[in-house]
């Protein structure tokens, strides 16, 4: 067939042009990522392998292994992240479920209430907790005057304060994907379960919960990963008693002006985050984190 090639090269060229244009649209963002992410991270990586005398050295990493305090910091970071994630699930899942069952108009209102803190400065929210939770703060004063407890409780500058603040900041990251997954569950599934003989409780655990877990996992992963590198809130509400990796990085730079040590910590934290994401991605579809398809 002599005519099979008719217009073929022209059509191929059109296809190429289209792809090129699409790439052109993405290039500003790609450039930005290169400048503010790839280059600095690369530089950090490089600095972490430079010793005090300016030559290539593993001393920054060796220090992390030798000193017990570093292991404790990593342990605290993981513990706080796990606790925060767990508390977010305990508070966020029932709330997301409640919202998913509301009529759309009310649900939107609730969604707004969940999102509202997002639009408020992180610093403002964190200091607000300080005002509320400190020794002479609103919560203690009210509770004592109501007779709930006699002595002011220590709710800030310790693990309690850190967790309260972090859970508050992180909740929307858990609620949104969970709510999204729940809204996508066809109500007929629950009707079918009920019709087939499942009590409301059975229907929830055998049908609704399993179908909502992709959203719950995605939200939990998001919260956990964000917690690993969280600085502002735990720094202020922890009062120096709960030391996370991010704080150690800051003190290495501000107190000891040791960029190499700080960079090495940053690299390890990044590596751990990547490992967590990689392990998680083997069990669930990461599209869910952005509310993407099933």
């Amino acid at each position: 067939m002599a005519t099979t090639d008719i217009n073929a090269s022209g059509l191929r060229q059109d296809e190429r042009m289209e792809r090129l244009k699409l790439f052109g649209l993405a290039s500003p963002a790609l450039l930005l990522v290169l400048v503010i992410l790839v280059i600095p991270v690369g530089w950090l990586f490089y600095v972490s392998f430079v010793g005090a005398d300016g030559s290539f050295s593993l001393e920054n990493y060796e220090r992390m292994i030798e000193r017990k305090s570093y292991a404790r910091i990593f342990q605290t970071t993981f513990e706080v992240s796990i606790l925060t994630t767990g508390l977010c699930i305990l508070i966020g899942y029932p709330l997301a479920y409640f919202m998913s069952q509301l009529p759309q108009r009310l649900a939107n209102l609730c969604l707004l209430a969940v999102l509202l803190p997002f639009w408020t400065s992180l610093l403002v929210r964190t200091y607000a907790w300080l005002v509320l939770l400190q020794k002479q703060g609103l919560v203690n004063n009210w509770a004592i005057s109501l007779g709930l407890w006699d002595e002011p409780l220590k709710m800030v500058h310790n693990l309690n304060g850190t967790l309260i603040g972090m859970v508050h900041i992180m909740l929307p990251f858990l609620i949104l994907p969970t709510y999204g997954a729940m809204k996508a569950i066809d109500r007929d599934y629950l009707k079918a379960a009920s019709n087939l003989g499942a009590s409301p409780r059975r229907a929830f655990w055998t049908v609704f919960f399993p179908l909502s877990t992709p959203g719950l996992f995605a939200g939990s992963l998001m919260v956990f990963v964000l917690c690993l590198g969280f600085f502002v809130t735990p720094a202020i509400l922890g009062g120096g008693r709960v030391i996370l990796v991010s704080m150690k990085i800051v003190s290495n730079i501000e107190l000891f002006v040791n960029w190499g040590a700080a960079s090495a910590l940053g690299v390890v934290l990044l590596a751990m985050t990547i490992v967590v994401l990689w392990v998680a991605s083997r069990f669930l579809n990461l599209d869910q984190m952005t509310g993407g398809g099933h």
Partner: protein
Amino acid sequence: MSDTNKDALPITVRNVTKTYGDVYALDDVSLDVKSGEFLTLLGPSGSGKTTLLMVLAGFTRPDRGSLKFGDEEMIRKPPHLRDVGMVFQNYALFPHMTVEGNVGYPLRLRGVSKQDVATRVERALDTVQLGGYGGRRITELSGGQKQRVALARSIVFEPRILLMDEPLSALDKKLRDRMQIELRHLHEQLGMTTVYVTHDQREALTMSDRVAVVNHGRIMQLAGPQELYDRPENKFVADFIGDSNFLSVTREGGTLTAGGVKLRTSRNVPEGDSLALMLRPERIHLLEDAADDETNVFDAKVTEVVYQGESFLLYAKLSDGSEVAVRGAIRADTFAGLPRAGAPVRLGLAAADTVIIADREG
């Protein structure tokens, strides 16, 4: 499974009313479904047919009324205790379970032993001709296969009542036609009392023992398919089932006139002065010779002839301006011999096919 017939239950619906604001979704509906019967609720969308089915399943709580399965009052019973099978319009198969997981689900809820679940699931899948599909994921199934799995899941626990909510509406026409016959056979085999909802009148006529035509939350007529088609009780039923044209009928003493023609009919004529003549296109024929005494003859002029493959549809205008359609079979070359637009024709309607109904909607 073939002798579950004796276990089928009759359904008794009494004075069930359901309102949404000012709108009556169900308006004092009473209905008897006989034990083992295949009854179809047929009506346009928004007629209340689905609401009635949801009341039977327990998903819609009516304002008042009574519902009995056998002798047992069910109206306040929650859905999971009603023990009725149901096939949903979109199948509602659980996407996180396999075919086996779905079909076995009602059995596991009932505490059936693992081994019995396996055998009964396999038997149910065999019944719907999906033997060996147990391990498949729901997403791997075609529309027709999903339909069958949904059916298997609804019959596997041997409910005595089966409800179906437009189960074939998502299938293409060929598959739908085949499934209609299969469902019919399945019903004969299992014998459970079946209530089927559809808006497709042909489907209703094909499958049902009896059809309840529903409109505005009321049952307009409850009858077997033939009677429904042949002797509609009111204009809504006559219009909804099959194609029809209507001519208004005037009554003077004992004489009935429509389209300028004095009507002969061998049918019963309802009381009252407001009457209409129902003209089914396939019951009218084109007259070539003189008509006999038993035929009403209308003079008309052809306005359009449409070729539809197995049949033609000829539109004609009577002398008083009303339009009438005539349908006839096409055999070799007969289409070419039909009169063209503008040609005068004589339309014959046998006295036995001259159906006069009350000219009211309800």
